[in-house]
């Protein structure tokens, strides 16, 4: 295999090293990675802590949202039952769906990734530990506030899909809908932060030798998962922004009276909402593909087919969003294409299911709790997949859509595809983080109760749907024959509830996290996560030569634990991990990582407070906390890229590696690039929305300003050029380099803002009034989005200037400049798009 980075892979032969390790090495490592004590646990940034917190919070929301479901089932047990008033029921079903999707399913699988990936990949931690801690705290605070809205009657009640105009200011005048819009927008930011972490983690922090074809299947799944979040969630962020703008300021994106279109929301929502299902399913499927081989003690049959199936799912799931809209009266050609794509997306699911069956056949299944949950999940998922094929048939969907048939379908898919695999994962991986494994005996009870409860709840719902019962009804009339299936469903729901209760008891009795010693590899799993580990993850980072290293590489555990591989110590004295190349995992540089501190926690608290105060319309306080949030983040960034002294360090066996990287080699540059992909998706979808709104009412559109488009584009080009020049000037390393290049960067920021200002001035001259029409609303939204970037650019200019004043701008450390330049160049490109699209389309 040709080298990706110029690293000589022959050097791998130096491992495992021989001879004793120097004394005090291990103590130094333990010292650097020691866990927080007492109240400092809040400041923990190690994935061993954050992963457990994260998963714990997700399970808390699972239990809470499940309790809401039990209340709803109680109400529906009998016709015209009076347990819950109508308003409460409408809030409950909205909260149940929203919490299960946004506060349980996505965070739970993301937490699983945060918890397991470093260990699986042989990294000491994820590359941005504070970012994952920030994501967790933001999610926990935001989620609890969101759930708390129920107790004040302020919970949203427009359904988890929040279709306008029902959720617009006219028909939902309270702040309930704002809770949803701001809360979900906020929680998506946290999901994106986690996704960035996971992408960079999987691509750049793998153990040396773990080439892309030896990437554990779970890591593949998490990589695709994170990529999908990056592409999909901008859509819901944009949608919530637009609806909130319409609610707060009357910008008519969805109001048909002023040229808006309610269907725009549906397109944006489902462009996120359908991939969301696979976002939830893929990591769980990855866990299944990890657990089933381990339980059957054999390799996964068709590893490559499964990888391709997951990739294909990731792609095709973006082409099926409109199958949630078969009944809105779309043109037939669109309907047909979406129907075909919906059928296509079921093929990869079939590949995975049969790969699992083949693996079970190739090995010998052990009927322990993880195994039971895995096989049970498989069966349930197949039923859900089959009803999915049914509703992909458009004429059948016309009947089944928005009935209990769909409720049955989606719960089969999500419970079989995600909840059962998650429970399998919890039972399988608990010994990794807990001093005691969970109880096998109780596990079996829990499995069978859950399996029976699941079918008893949802199997009758297929029939209830065919009998004509629509979804989202707080009650139903007697005499329709719906009593019996509903009563059965309620009984099943309670059975499921008992299973979850038993699981809670099992957790309380046996879960003992954060101990120095864990229960170990009791299921004989083959992955690196089962190497002896501690808070610093593995003692030394192994060279991986197999997809199943613990099965195939004899003596690996012993050699790793005695420090005979990469990075047996911490050469810079702090927390570090190895950054490797994305395809072949060749060592590139040593990444120094931060120690615990409170800034990211405060940043999370202030961001949450900002959004919460915005929701309750305390604008002055919101502005204050917004500024505090910006300040804490600013301070957090201030700790990055400090001058350092050891340019090259020994990463084991005398192999020297740089301890610094800038540009595309560095992890920070990747994080910025991914963030910009998110931003790019938002603006791309905003462009789509703009064109969509035009197509719905072209006759209402007014001509754009005929003005200085050339000047705007010229200024943006200058800005991009100056940003590029700043990096070149710095790395040129002349005596005045820091000053000149900082100046160039600041000028670039100025040019950006000038261009933006010119753009806005042109539109204002043409009478831009965002409340007047959907055209003006869309243009204003585009300009405002660009304005957000220009303001951030200004902050970055300030940041660079301050760094110059503190003499942090060094020619041999251009990482910050590279990142800022990337951002400025993107902003210039985005500005050009924002200037050009509304001026040249729909026509000059």
């Amino acid at each position, binding site marked *: 295999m040709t080298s990706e980075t110029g690293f000589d892979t022959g050097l791998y032969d130096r491992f495992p090293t021989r001879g004793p390790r120097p004394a005090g090495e291990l103590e130094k490592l333990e010292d650097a990675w020691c866990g927080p004590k007492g109240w400092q646990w809040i400041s923990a940034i190690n994935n061993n802590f954050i992963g457990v917190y994260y998963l714990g919070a997700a399970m808390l929301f699972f239990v809470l949202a499940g309790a809401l479901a039990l209340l709803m089932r109680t109400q529906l047990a009998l016709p015209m039952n009076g347990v819950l008033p*109508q308003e409460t029921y409408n809030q409950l079903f909205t909260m149940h769906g929203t919490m299960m999707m946004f506060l349980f399913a996505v965070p739970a699988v993301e937490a699983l990734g945060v918890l397991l990936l470093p260990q699986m990949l042989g990294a000491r931690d994820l590359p941005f530990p504070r970012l994952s801690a920030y994501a967790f705290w933001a999610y926990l605070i935001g989620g609890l506030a969101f759930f708390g809205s129920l107790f004040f009657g302020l919970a949203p009640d*427009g359904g988890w899909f929040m*279709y306008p105009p*029902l959720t617009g200011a*006219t028909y939902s005048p309270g702040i309930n809908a704002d809770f949803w819009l701001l809360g979900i927008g906020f929680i998506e930011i946290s999901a994106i932060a986690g996704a960035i972490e996971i992408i960079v983690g999987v691509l750049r922090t793998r153990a040396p030798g773990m080439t892309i074809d030896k990437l554990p299947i779970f890591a593949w799944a998490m990589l695709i998962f994170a990529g999908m979040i990056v592409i999909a969630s901008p859509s819901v962020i944009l949608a919530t922004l637009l609806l909130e703008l319409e609610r707060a300021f009357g910008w008519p994106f969805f109001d*048909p009276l002023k040229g808006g*279109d*309610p*269907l725009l929301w549906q397109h944006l929502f489902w462009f996120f909402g359908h991939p969301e299902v696979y976002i939830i399913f893929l990591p769980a499927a990855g866990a299944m593909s990890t657990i089933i081989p381990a339980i059957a003690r*054999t390799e996964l*049959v*068709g590893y490559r087919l499964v990888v391709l*199936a997951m990739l294909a799912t990731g792609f095709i799931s973006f082409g099926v969003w409109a199958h949630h809209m078969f*009944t809105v*009266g779309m043109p*037939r050609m669109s309907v*047909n294409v979406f*129907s075909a794509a919906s*059928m296509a997306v079921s*093929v990869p699911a*079939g*590949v995975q*299911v*049969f790969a699992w069956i*083949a693996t*079970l*056949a*190739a*090995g010998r299944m052990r009927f322990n709790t993880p195994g039971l949950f895995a*096989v049970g999940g498989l*069966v349930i998922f*197949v*039923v859900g997949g*089959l*009803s999915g*094929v049914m509703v*992909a*048939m*458009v*004429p*059948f969907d*016309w*009947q*089944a*859509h*928005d009935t209990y048939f769909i409720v049955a379908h989606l719960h089969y898919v999500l419970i079989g595809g995600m909840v059962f695999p998650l429970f399998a994962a919890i039972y399988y991986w608990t010994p990794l983080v807990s001093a005691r494994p969970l109880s096998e005996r109780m596990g079996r009870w829990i499995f069978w109760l859950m399996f029976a409860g699941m079918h008893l709840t949802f199997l009758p719902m297929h*029939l209830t749907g*065919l*009998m*004509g019962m629509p*979804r*989202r*009804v*707080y009650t*139903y*009339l007697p*005499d*329709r*024959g*719906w009593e019996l299936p509903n009563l059965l469903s309620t009984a099943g729901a309670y059975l499921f509830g008992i299973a979850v209760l038993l699981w809670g008891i099992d957790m309380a009795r046996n879960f003992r996290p954060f101990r120095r010693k864990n229960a170990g590899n009791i299921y004989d799993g083959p992955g690196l996560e089962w190497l002896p580990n501690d808070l610093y993850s593995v003692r030394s980072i192994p060279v991986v030569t197999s997809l199943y290293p613990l099965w195939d590489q004899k003596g690996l555990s012993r050699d790793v634990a005695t420090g005979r591989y990469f990075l047996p110590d911490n050469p810079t004295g702090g927390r570090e991990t190895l950054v490797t190349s994305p395809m072949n995992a060749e060592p590139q540089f040593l990444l120094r990582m931060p120690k615990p501190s409170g800034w990211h926690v405060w940043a999370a608290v202030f961001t949450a407070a900002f959004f919460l105060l915005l929701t309750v319309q305390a604008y002055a306080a919101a502005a204050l906390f917004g500024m505090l949030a910006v300040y804490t983040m600013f301070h957090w960034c201030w700790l990055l890229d400090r001058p350092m002294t050891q340019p090259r360090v020994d990463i084991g066996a005398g192999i020297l590696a740089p301890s610094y990287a800038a540009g595309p080699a560095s992890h920070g540059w990747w994080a910025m690039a991914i963030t910009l992909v998110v931003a790019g998706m938002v603006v791309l979808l905003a462009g789509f929305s703009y064109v969509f709104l035009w197509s719905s009412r072209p006759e209402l559109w007014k001509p754009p300003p005929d003005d200085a488009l050339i000047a705007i584009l010229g200024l943006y080009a200058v800005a991009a050029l100056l940003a590029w020049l700043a990096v070149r000037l710095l790395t040129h390393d002349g005596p005045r380099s820091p000053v000149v290049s900082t100046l160039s960067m600041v000028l670039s920021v100025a040019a950006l803002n000038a261009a933006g200002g010119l753009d806005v001035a042109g539109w204002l001259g043409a009478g831009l009034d965002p409340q007047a029409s959907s055209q003006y609303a869309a243009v204003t939204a585009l300009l405002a989005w660009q304005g957000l970037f220009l303001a951030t650019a200004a902050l970055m200019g300030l940041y660079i200037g301050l760094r110059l004043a503190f003499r942090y701008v060094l020619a041999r450390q251009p990482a910050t400049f590279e990142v800022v330049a990337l951002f400025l160049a993107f902003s210039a490109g985005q500005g050009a798009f924002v200037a050009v699209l509304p001026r040249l389309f729909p026509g000059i």
Partner: protein
Amino acid sequence: MSALDALRGWPPPVLDPAGPFAGPVTTVAWVLFAMGAVVLAIVLVATAAALFGPRRWRARLGGERLVWLGGFAFPVVVLTGLLIYGLTLTRDLSAPPAPGEVRVRVTGEMWWWRVGYLDARGGEAFQDANQIHIPPRAPVVLELEAADVIHSLWIPRLAGKLDMIPGRRNILRLQADRPGVYAAQCAEFCGGPHALMGLVVVAHEPRAYAAWQARQGRPATPLPSRGAEVFAAAGCGACHTVRGTAANGLAGPDLTHIGSRRTLGAGILPNHQGTLAAWVADSQALKPGNRMPAYPVLSGRDLRALAAYLEALK
């Protein structure tokens, strides 16, 4: 057959079609159930064999060949067939309406249905609410609109559902092969008492349809009565229209022929003096959240007179 009899659940309406726009979908449903049962059986048998089968079977199953056959080849063949079937049917069922078909404009409102019968030129001949009368054995075109939020009209025994979206007009065709009463309801969550937003479709015998049409087209001819006075004095006319009288409100359903309707409160109650009086006095107890305020101020005598007046509006 009474209106409420049409609401009974068995056989499931989706599997008990009564017209050519629903029948083929039922056939699809049965085909899909058969497909699902076969595939599920295959998966279960394969899983059982993989778990418990003799070594020889498991050796045959435990390779990539199974993944290719079961996970790729088999689904591709089955799904190709299904797709073509579905596409053909979609085309047949969504054929554009022919000229001369009866047109009815149904507007979804929170939480009832405004039903306008269109004449040959597309103008509204007369208005009714919460029930749709159609001639039998002839395709009918429903123009679906929404006045406030998104609703969805679903008459399971006659056709699939189609959404009513503010600012748009969707076309739903349906046909009843037999005279009868068909239950329908709103299928898209529209807030508040969405659960109680039903309606009935009444398919007549041909001659009965013409008679019904003639009667509905006429304005009301109520005799002067105490009920009419109460109706006027209580301000009912601010929201409701009774053609032929001074009442011309547009916010609520047209009451010109309310006495002839089968149900009250958008498909939830039988319609007679008793329920009319109950509805007027306290509709919030019967359909919480609906837009009609309760009228507890009417005296017993006035309430009874009003109910009698409304029932007489046949």
